[in-house]
């Protein structure tokens, strides 16, 4: 294809556009002002004839840039799908005629709205290039799995089953992880009645038999550099030897550790060897090798065992876990069965509050436990008193009384804690030793953990944490999306889970890893802009090495070179444009989205002179939530003020302050920014984008005051996709504000 640009405009007159608007005027604007070399009208542009017309222009007329003025960019996407050209769309349907009343007195302003959207779409188009992959990308199908427990082994086997080579790096001298120490596992197949074999041995055998899986035992990841498709990893063995491998994607399956109940005096864990954790019981059972379980203190056969559930969990007390492991009750049932299956006369009592045995499997297993005569008591345990016979004191919540029971062995259900590396975004806590010494209350134990991935990233060595150290995704709909592209967490590292869930989770993570490797090979973006070929590039001669882009990228995609210039790693990049919004000198851009492409839209809106009394309100709306909300407002016939000009942005984080200052300078009267929810329950698809934008806009007041403008002219909102009434109202409110405070003095 030649490099010659050819601009073609298309105006649809269907869906009432032709009736409501003067389409020949639109065409004239497209060609004269918008500089489209051709502009055609069609009564139903999305029909096969309309689409064919465009296709013909592309193939025979050499149209390289096309502007489609029709419905919203969210509608008829399949019809207007021309991946071989650069394209913009002017939203005349949802964005203009559906949000404006069909009455003669509104005709003029409605037409002006449409005129401007044509100008904007043409202007944007002139600043776009068809994105091409950089050519830096390479396909590397090998997957690195860090951690050789059940999750890691499953991830490896599942990846290999799809034909992808895998390396497992395991810190210990053998595969199997925690599960290798278990006697048995919770059942994974219907009827979910009997504990089953852990399957560890079979999995190890399958890994050994696989020609695609390489295992590094006694090894850790010493360094991870690069990006998806070209991760460059140093694998260090205990002996100090380091080997180097390259990978397409990484799965972190480093599992969990258990909560230490030593500090919980009431359970007497430190005072008696016969008070054990659930993990320690597994060892006792394994040691018994099918015979009766002996208690640690005197080797006497255990004839009565009490399971104290939810120890140090679901608690707001300092030093305890605020969450619940979710599987402790299933484990207790399994463990009580060890005793019952060995000797049905052994008394087994599970002291629980809310019995958490969810799903079909959970409820089946609960019933199976009851059938084996495990006693279940809804209880609040207050104390375990050590002694030859242990006394468990509790409040029986059903019988509503303080009572106690005797047991030879007490098993504490302690919670799972993620085995994650240090959180790159943890606020460093400066511990004041003097204050601590003076303080009465004991501090939560501060554990410094070693890095697991040793990422050579500007923003830290490991996967960011969510809450309580879990590296889970925040997104309900997209559970695998971590903030480090191409690195996926799996298993109890993400949230507490049992082996069945961990195995399903491992398969999911393997899916994402394979996908990341494949797409990195094609130079395509990962979720949520999957398939996007554009990537950020920067003009080095303008860069001031301020590092804002490297600090603010939500995905840690940008490193710095030795001089402090940004080093973009395109396959780590999610194409949100937060770097672009961060850059004070406007040197960062994408081929299909740039400071210029939006600036051109802003500039090409016709700002009427002051005496026309027609204000202009710029709306920068996140394309993921706010823009769809405005579209739906159109479908519902909710009115939007005719002074508004809406520009969809990739993420509010991509908003450049220059857009604000430039639009104010060119006479806009108000600016409304709409991003997604930020904070703990953020809905921003790029995690920090919206929050960044809000922070930056805090400082916009200075700009406004330097221009002698009222602060209320620029407002930032969190808007949800469901804000179908509210989003238009926010725009209309700005129109009222402008009416109140008057037009901008910056009009020409």
């Amino acid at each position, binding site marked *: 294809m030649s490099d010659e640009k050819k601009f073609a405009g298309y105006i649809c007159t269907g869906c009432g556009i032709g009736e409501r608007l003067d389409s020949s005027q639109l065409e004239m604007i497209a060609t004269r002002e918008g500089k489209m070399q051709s502009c055609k009208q069609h009564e139903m542009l999305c029909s096969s004839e309309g689409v064919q017309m465009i296709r013909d222009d592309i193939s025979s007329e050499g149209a390289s840039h096309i502007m489609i003025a029709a419905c919203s960019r969210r509608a008829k996407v399949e019809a207007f799908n021309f991946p071989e050209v650069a394209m913009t769309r002017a939203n005349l349907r949802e964005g203009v005629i559906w949000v404006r009343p069909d009455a003669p007195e509104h005709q003029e302003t409605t037409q002006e709205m449409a005129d401007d959207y044509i100008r904007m779409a043409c202007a944007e188009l002139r600043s776009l290039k068809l994105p091409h992959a950089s050519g830096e990308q390479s396909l590397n199908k090998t997957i690195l799995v860090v951690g050789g427990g059940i999750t890691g082994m499953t991830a490896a086997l599942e990846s290999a089953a799809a034909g992808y080579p895998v390396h497992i790096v395991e810190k210990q001298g053998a595969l199997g992880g925690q599960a290798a120490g278990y006697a048995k596992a919770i059942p994974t197949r219907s009827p979910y009645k009997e504990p089953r074999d852990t399957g560890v041995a079979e999995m190890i055998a399958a890994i050994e038999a696989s020609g695609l899986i390489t295992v590094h035992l006694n090894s850790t990841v010493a360094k991870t550099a690069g990006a998806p498709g070209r991760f460059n990893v140093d694998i260090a063995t205990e002996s100090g030897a380091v080997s180097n491998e390259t990978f397409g994607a990484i799965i972190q399956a480093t599992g969990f550790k258990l909560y230490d109940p030593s500090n919980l005096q009431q359970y007497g864990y430190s005072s008696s060897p016969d008070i054990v954790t659930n993990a320690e019981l597994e060892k006792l059972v394994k040691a018994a090798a099918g015979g009766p379980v002996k208690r640690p203190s005197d080797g006497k056969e255990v004839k009565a065992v009490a399971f104290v559930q939810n120890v140090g969990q679901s608690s707001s007390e300092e030093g305890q876990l605020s969450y619940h492991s979710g599987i402790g009750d299933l484990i207790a049932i399994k463990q009580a069965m060890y005793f019952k299956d060995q000797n049905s006369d052994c008394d087994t009592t599970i002291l629980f509050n809310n019995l958490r045995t969810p*799903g079909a499997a959970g409820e089946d297993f609960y019933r199976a436990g009851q059938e084996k005569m495990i006693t279940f008591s809804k209880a609040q345990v207050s104390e375990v008193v050590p002694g030859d016979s242990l006394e468990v004191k509790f409040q029986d919540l059903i019988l509503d009384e303080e009572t106690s029971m005797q047991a030879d062995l007490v098993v504490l259900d302690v919670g799972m804690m993620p085995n994650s590396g240090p959180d790159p975004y943890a606020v460093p806590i400066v511990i004041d030793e003097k204050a601590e010494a003076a303080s009465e209350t004991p501090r939560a134990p501060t554990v410094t953990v070693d890095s697991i991935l040793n990422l050579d990233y500007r923003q830290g060595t490991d996967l960011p944490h969510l809450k309580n150290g879990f590296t889970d995704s925040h997104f309900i709909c997209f559970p695998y999306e971590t903030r480090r592209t191409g690195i996926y967490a799996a298993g109890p590292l993400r949230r507490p889970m049992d082996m069945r869930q961990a195995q399903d989770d*491992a398969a999911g993570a393997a899916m994402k890893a394979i996908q990341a490797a494949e797409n990195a090979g094609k130079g395509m973006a990962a979720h949520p802009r999957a398939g996007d070929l554009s990537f950020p590039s920067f003009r080095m001669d303008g860069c001031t090495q301020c590092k804002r882009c490297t600090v603010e990228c939500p995905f840690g995609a940008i490193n710095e070179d030795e001089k402090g210039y940004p080093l973009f790693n395109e396959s780590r990049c999610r194409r949100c444009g937060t770097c672009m919004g961060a850059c004070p000198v406007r040197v960062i851009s994408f081929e299909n989205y740039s400071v210029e492409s939006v600036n051109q839209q802003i500039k090409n809106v016709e700002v009427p002179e002051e005496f026309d009394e027609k204000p202009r309100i710029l709306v920068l709306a996140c394309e993921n939530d706010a823009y769809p909300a405005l579209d739906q407002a159109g479908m519902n016939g909710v009115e939007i003020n005719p002074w508004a000009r809406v520009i969809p942005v990739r993420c509010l984080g991509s908003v450049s302050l220059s857009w604000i200052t430039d639009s104010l300078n060119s006479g806009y009267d108000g600016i409304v920014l709409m991003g997604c929810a930020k904070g703990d329950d953020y809905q921003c*698809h790029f995690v920090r984008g919206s929050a960044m934008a809000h922070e930056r806009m805090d400082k916009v007041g200075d700009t406004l005051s330097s221009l002698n403008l009222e602060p209320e002219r620029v407002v930032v909102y969190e808007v949800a996709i469901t804000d179908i009434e509210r989003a238009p109202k926010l725009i209309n409110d700005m129109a009222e504000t402008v009416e109140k405070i008057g037009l901008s003095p910056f009009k020409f």
Partner: protein
Amino acid sequence: MTEVIATNQTILVVGGGISGLTAALEAAETGKQVVLVEKRPYVGGRVTQLYKYFPKLCFPTCGLEINQRRAKMNPNLTILTMAEVTDIQGDAGNYTASVKISPRYVNDNCTGCGDCARAVSAEFDDEFNYGLGKRKGAYLPHRMAHPQRYVIDPAILGTDEAEKAKTACKVNAVDLEMQEETVSFKAGAVVWATGWQPYDANKIQPYGYDRFQNVVTNVEFERMADPNGPTGGKILRPSDGEVAKNIAFIQCAGSRDKNHLLHCSRICCMATLKQTHYVQEALGDEGKSTIYYIDIRAIDRFEDFYQAVRENPNVSFIKSKVASITQNKENSNPVLNGVDTEGYHRYANEHDLVVLAVGMQPSVDKASFPVDIVINEEGFIEPATENGGIFAAGCSSDALDVNRAVQQATGAALRAIQVVNRVAGTEG
């Protein structure tokens, strides 16, 4: 005639809810050819009918928008709506599926302009709102429906109404002659993701869902709480349209019960805890919620959410499976009878509205399943090797919340890919 281009390397995904959609998209975004078959006229399934998700209280349409955009942009994905798989023959790597496509009476020309709906006056119970509102005989099932194509209700066929719709359409999208058709095509692997249905509350006779207007289900309550729903987000009593302020939630309505669903449906505890937020949001301190439960199953990270609701003075918890509901004839208030089992306290509590937390019944019909597969006692598909190249995703495999369903569906996509990659390996 619908044409489906597929080979032994194609992945067939049955069901276009959040699980099916996820499996389809993950596979398609890995470069695999995928055909997605969905019974409803649109994708997204039941999550489209939810107001908010727990625990973030965010909006399901937010993720739906992203998923639909992924679907619109992806050339590897073919979506067949109003379509059902009637038969699957063959083995892993070589299946032939037959799919029955019901007529929509609206073709691809549809621009979603809504002229047909404006022309038609006949109204029907709106299934999207569980019959709590009305829709036209020509309708877009919901505002974000994808494909954005209207549907003509077969009930207006042969009437003036149908003709009105046809005449109103300026782009010749209304095709009243459209016929049911059956297409068959190849697939290497199948992801079965037909999801779930709310357990039929009429079967829980003592709760009087069929007799008392002020007894509703949790799925209906989702629509009632949604500001874009049939009541505009007001929580109103069906009997008199008054605002319901004192609301009871009955857990395990059908779940954990050998007379109904044997399994625990996992999500209902969290769904109810979430719905107490709706009450709080709509009514502030005037809204009171009472939860009648056996065990609150707020698993793992959801504990925080549970504790926060526990601390809300407007929400109370009673450990009891409600025995029966009667009605105060004077004000149509439901009266809940039972025993609080913590201690021994009998109650006969009057409420304005009762929400039954009905369980998840898997939409896996053992009797008419198109292919031999291992289905367990509860009706979920087992992860059995005997299932060959057929893999359950989401609530076809277990009672799962959205997050877990998506997680599980992502894994199911990989298992399907393993099969088609083996086919590709042998076919070259």
